[in-house]
Every structure is written in C-alpha cells, then in structure tokens.
C-alpha cells in the first residue's frame, strides 16, 4: 500500500469510527461501520495495514469494537464473520483458553462483547501437548461473566464447561502466529491510547494556569511529558519492527513494551492532569481503564518479561531479534 493510500484509509477509518461512536449507543455500531468500509476484505488482503490502521484508531478514539475476534479467527484459519466470536487467553496469559478433558471442554478465557450475540464461540483447547479447536454455542460465554474495570470495552472473563463438539487438530505454530498477530494488534491499540493520553495531558498543561503561567512552563511537568513521548515512540517503533520481522518473539516483546510504556504514560499523564484527570468529567479515565484491561490481553508485560528472561537464561543466549 502506498503512503497516500494508507493516509486516505486512515482518515476513512477514523471518520467511520467517529460517526458510529457519535450517532448511537449501540455497541455494534463501530463494528458495522468498519465492515461497511471493507474491514474484513482489508484484513485478508492487507493484514498489516488493516490491523495497524484500525487498532491504532480504536486506541486513539477509545471506541469499542470486536475486530480482535476477526483477527484471531483469520489467524486460526476460520473465515471472519460477525457471528463468530473467539475466546482469548485468560487475563495476563497467552496459553490456549480451553482444555479438553474427555468429552468436556473447560473454558477459561476473555471474550469480547461479540460473544454476547454471536452464534458460535471458537475455542482453542489444550489436549495434552497438542492443540485442538472446538466451536461451542456462544451462550456459554454469558456464564459467570466478569466485566471488571472497563465494562464499556466489552471484554469479560468467561469460565465454564461445555460438552466437546467436534475437535479439530491445530498446529502449535498456527496458534503462536495467531497470538503474535493479536499481540501486534493490541500493542498498536495501546500505543494509540497512549498517544491520546499524552495529547490530553499536553493540552491540559498548556491550558491550565497556576502561579500566573501555564503549567507547561514548569520543567517538572515538561519532563514527564517528554518521558511519555520517548516511551510511546519506542513502543511504536517496536510494533513496526514486529511487523517487519514478524515472529512470535518480536510480537511478544512488543506487547511487553506496550505494557511498560502504558505504565509510564498513564502515571505521567495522570499526574500532569492532576485533579481533573481524577474525575469522570475528563476523558482520561476511559483510556486508563481501557488500557488496564488491554494489558491483560495476550500476556501482561510482567508475565512476558519473566518468560522471555527465563528462555534467555535457559539458552544462555541473547539474540538480536531485528536487524538493519
């Protein structure tokens, strides 16, 4: 895709999300708007551009959509469709969300709002050392749902047990690649949210007058915002690198960097926003809560960091994952 084409697509996506978010409270509105402008076709034809642009825009706008289900479905070899939801790994982890136990499937994962209306829920299950996919009726996803810090985001924890339908073998590499793709998508969404929080804090710093001048003039405030920008830029470069040199490792590390960056950005921006950032009158809280939830999707920074560290120490080897 050419740069000009990409820029056009970006503004089309952002306009569609903005219109859909403004016009209705319907949770499916943004999904429907994205489908109308060709999201599923883009996802198949140009997955990188589609995911980068759509998830970046979701991050910046804090809109709620369930396109992550499509990313996972495509990654697992299923045709993305609005009535197919995919169960994501349990909060902070990245193992398969299901486990096969005889003729029963134990479910333990995160489901998007799509799971509330979709016909079917696709679940990747561990079966011993192998993987299977099973498709179960979505109704199980409503059992014992926990919405947590960000109910507007539509992610909920799902636990349950259902009879095993036809289980189809799944290559571990396919699951790893699907998780990697999901990680790149979520990392991009977090990067978009981080940018938005930094913009909010910057605007506030320029606007808010104390001691006779905008607080943006105080070095302590400036340095917090500068450190936030440094972190966000490094995250964005890491996400790009995870596409350029696509592998489970570059995606895992990008997701960990997203978590670390988010911690830096939310702390600095909330401090700069001070009192108003502590209220629900200001939009900051929505980004904070959304990214708190996203931190747990496909592995938290802490879990990934320890896992990566263990593997480096076990191999006694420190690879450079990306080259010039």
């Amino acid at each position: 895709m050419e740069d000009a084409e990409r820029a056009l697509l970006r503004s089309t996506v952002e306009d569609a999300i903005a219109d859909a978010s403004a016009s209705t409270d319907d949770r499916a509105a943004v999904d429907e708007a994205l489908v109308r402008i060709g999201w599923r076709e883009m996802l198949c034809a140009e997955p990188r551009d589609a995911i980068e642009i759509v998830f970046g825009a979701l991050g910046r706008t804090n809109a709620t959509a369930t396109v992550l289900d499509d990313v996972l479905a495509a990654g697992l070899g299923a045709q993305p469709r609005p009535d197919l939801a995919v169960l994501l790994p349990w909060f902070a982890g990245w193992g398969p969300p299901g486990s096969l136990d005889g003729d029963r499937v134990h479910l333990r994962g995160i489901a998007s709002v799509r799971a509330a209306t979709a016909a079917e829920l696709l679940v990747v299950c561990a079966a011993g050392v192998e993987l299977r996919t099973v498709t179960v009726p979505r109704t199980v996803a409503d059992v014992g749902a926990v919405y947590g810090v960000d109910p507007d985001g539509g992610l909920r924890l799902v636990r349950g047990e259902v009879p095993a339908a036809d289980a189809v073998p799944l290559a571990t590499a396919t699951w790893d690649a699907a998780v990697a793709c999901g990680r790149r998508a979520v990392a991009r969404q977090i990067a978009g949210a981080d940018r938005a929080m930094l913009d909010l804090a910057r605007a506030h710093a320029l606007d808010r007058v104390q001691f006779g001048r905008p607080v943006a003039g105080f070095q302590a405030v400036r340095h917090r915002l500068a450190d936030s920008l440094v972190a966000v830029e490094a995250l964005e470069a890491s996400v790009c690198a995870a596409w350029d040199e696509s592998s489970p490792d570059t995606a895992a590390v990008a997701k960990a960097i997203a978590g670390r960056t988010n911690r830096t950005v939310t702390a600095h921006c909330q401090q700069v926003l001070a009192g108003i950032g502590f209220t629900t009158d200001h939009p900051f809280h929505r980004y904070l809560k959304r990214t708190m939830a996203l931190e747990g999707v496909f592995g938290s920074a802490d879990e990934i960091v320890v896992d990566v560290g263990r593997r480096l120490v076990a191999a006694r080897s420190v690879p450079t994952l990306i080259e010039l």
Partner: protein
Amino acid sequence: MTTPSPAALLDADRVTIAEYRAALQAWLDEHHAELAPRYSPPGTLDEHVAQMQRVKSLLFDAGWMRYGWPERVGGLGGSPMLRTELGASIAARDLTDPGLYSLIEVLAPTLIEFSPPALAAKVVPRLLSGAEMWCQGFSEPGTGSDLSSLACQARPDGDAATASAWIINGQKVWTSLAQYADRCVLLTRTGPPDSRHRGITAFFVDMDSPGISVAPLEMINGMREFAEVFFDEVVVPADRMLGELHGGWAVAMSILPYERSSCFWQRIAYLYRRLQLLVDIAPDDDRTAEVVGDAFVQLHALRARSRATQHRLADGATLGAETSIDKLLVATAEQSIYDAARRLLPGVVEMDDGVIGATWRSEYLYSRAATIYGGTAEVQRNIIARRLLDLGDDG
C-alpha cells in the same frame, strides 16, 4: 597473485545489508585470531587504542572499512548503513570499544562535508585505516550543555578575509583521546564573546602544532580517556578552516545525525554483547529471569527505535530534535544493563579484583556518564518538550 578478499567481491552500490552482513560475518569468523585483542580484559587504555588501530588497519586492508564511504576519500561507495553494520559487528564481537571507534563516525563525515576536497582525500583514509587518531575539541570548562557559549578564541593573523593563518588561544576539556590524537576538529570563538552560535568557526588542527599541551584527566573508573587541551598562540593555516568563517555551528550540528544514528547502533550492539556476558554467568533463578527479561525488553525497544532512525537517515531524512529520543533511550538502556549486572552479580562489581570484577566495575562506573555526555538527559528532555511536544519556552 593474492586471493581477492571476500570484501573485494561485493559491489558496494548493489549489495544488500543482509548480503554484506553475511559476507562480513564469515570474514570475521575466518580472521578471528588476527583480530582478537592481544590483552586480557579489562585492558589499559593504551591497549584499547592500539587494538582499535590494529583492527581498523586490518579491516581497511581487507576492504571492509571502505564500504559506505565516498570514493573521493578512499571509500568504495554504497550506503552508509554498510559502515554502521561494520561498526556494530565488531562491537558485538568485542573487537573494539565502540566509544573509541565511534569517533570515526563523528569526525570523518565532518571532514568530508566541510573541508577542502584535497584535504579530506588526504586525511580521511588515514583515519579509517588506523594510521591516525583524531579528537573533537568542543566542550570547555565553562561550556558543557550550553555549547554555543564557548570561548576558545581564534583571531586572524591580519585581516579576517585575507589572513593566511589563525591564532588560537584557550582551553578545551573532556576531549577524548587527545593524548593519542594527531588532529583535532576544533570549535573556536571568532565573533564577539557574546555572539553565541553566530560567531563560532571550526578548524582542523594538527595536534603537534607548537603551543598545544594535553593534560589527561582520570575518569571515575581510573582510565584517562579524556583530557584538558590548552592552546597558547597556536598557529593554524587558514586553509584548515572547516566550513565558513563564523559557520562553525553548522559544522557542530552536522555531527548530530551520525552520532545519533550509526554510533548508537554500534553502542546497541555492544550493549547486547554486555547482556550476553551477564547471561553467561548469572545464576539460573527467578530473579535473573526477571532482571534479564526487563533489560532485554528495554534494549529491544531501543534497537527498534534506532533501526527506524537508521532507515530514515538512509532514505534521505534530515535528522534533528527527534534524535533526543534515541539519546535518552540509549542512555537509559545502558545504565539498566549495568544496574542489572550489579543486582545479579552481587559483590562482583564492588569487591572482585579478578578479570570479571574489574571489567564489570570499570564499565559500570563508566556507564554512569551515559546520561551526561553528548547532551545531558535533562537537556534532551528540554529539547523534546520544546521542539517535539511544542510546549513553548520553559519558565
């Protein structure tokens, strides 16, 4: 007839970075014994400098050192990323100290851009081949972060427009390797004392000129890497002026893109190597996993950022204030790695006088300067706030 080295078989204008890297790695493997340091770590500064010049000489003779440099200064042409790859490859193998080696990237492009072509053609190959050492005379006792306040004076011998020579008086400080240097890229005050960046001129000065004296300073790790340099009525021919009269600020600023791109890529390679050395000896436990994982993730973020910067430079972008981001990331990652070493090797950095302890200690202490040299972390944050975040002037 001698066998052509692998380097001579590559077409500098067509070779990809990956092909160059593969051929280079094979050559470095093959010539490991010749290239390896002759001293046992940590080594003295004399040994480090001798090692670097020897490695440069071998690389120049084999052709590797000439890729990415223009033909008019003895290079073979091709993308500057080739020489970035070379610097990183030898840093990753601990063949040279990247801090010393990076002076090439800091100084040679300056000569190529600002000196009379005949001078560059004569001296740049001598720098690349290890026949000469150069230093950079920028900072002064009263001029740290605020470079444009420098005072070291150059006055024309006669009228400024027609003078055949300039006479220099003043002092520089933190001049790395001055005691080894054959030449110095020197910033001087040629305008009125308060003329700031408008009254600075750069010269290429022979360090054996009468009136120059060098007093090495002992750093916190005991090495004497940098020095005070005194200029007492030092006569410099007018044709050694770099760039325009009063145009020294442009010369100084031209260094930034290289210092913040290729030099950083080389330092990053060195830092990966440091983390590898730590992983080689750290205990296999949960704390190591967490500390190493954290350092690795931080290094990767820096590498991703720097990689993007190298590509932007190669694509013709003009690098500017945004490289302050690279600078902060590199400084933070460097200190994190040595902090990790202290945590995972308790007592080694502090109380071990063996090879491992002495090396980690020396490097740990040196790493504390990462947030100070090349523009302090605070100055970088000020630049980011004003130039990138557009927060206006600070109070």
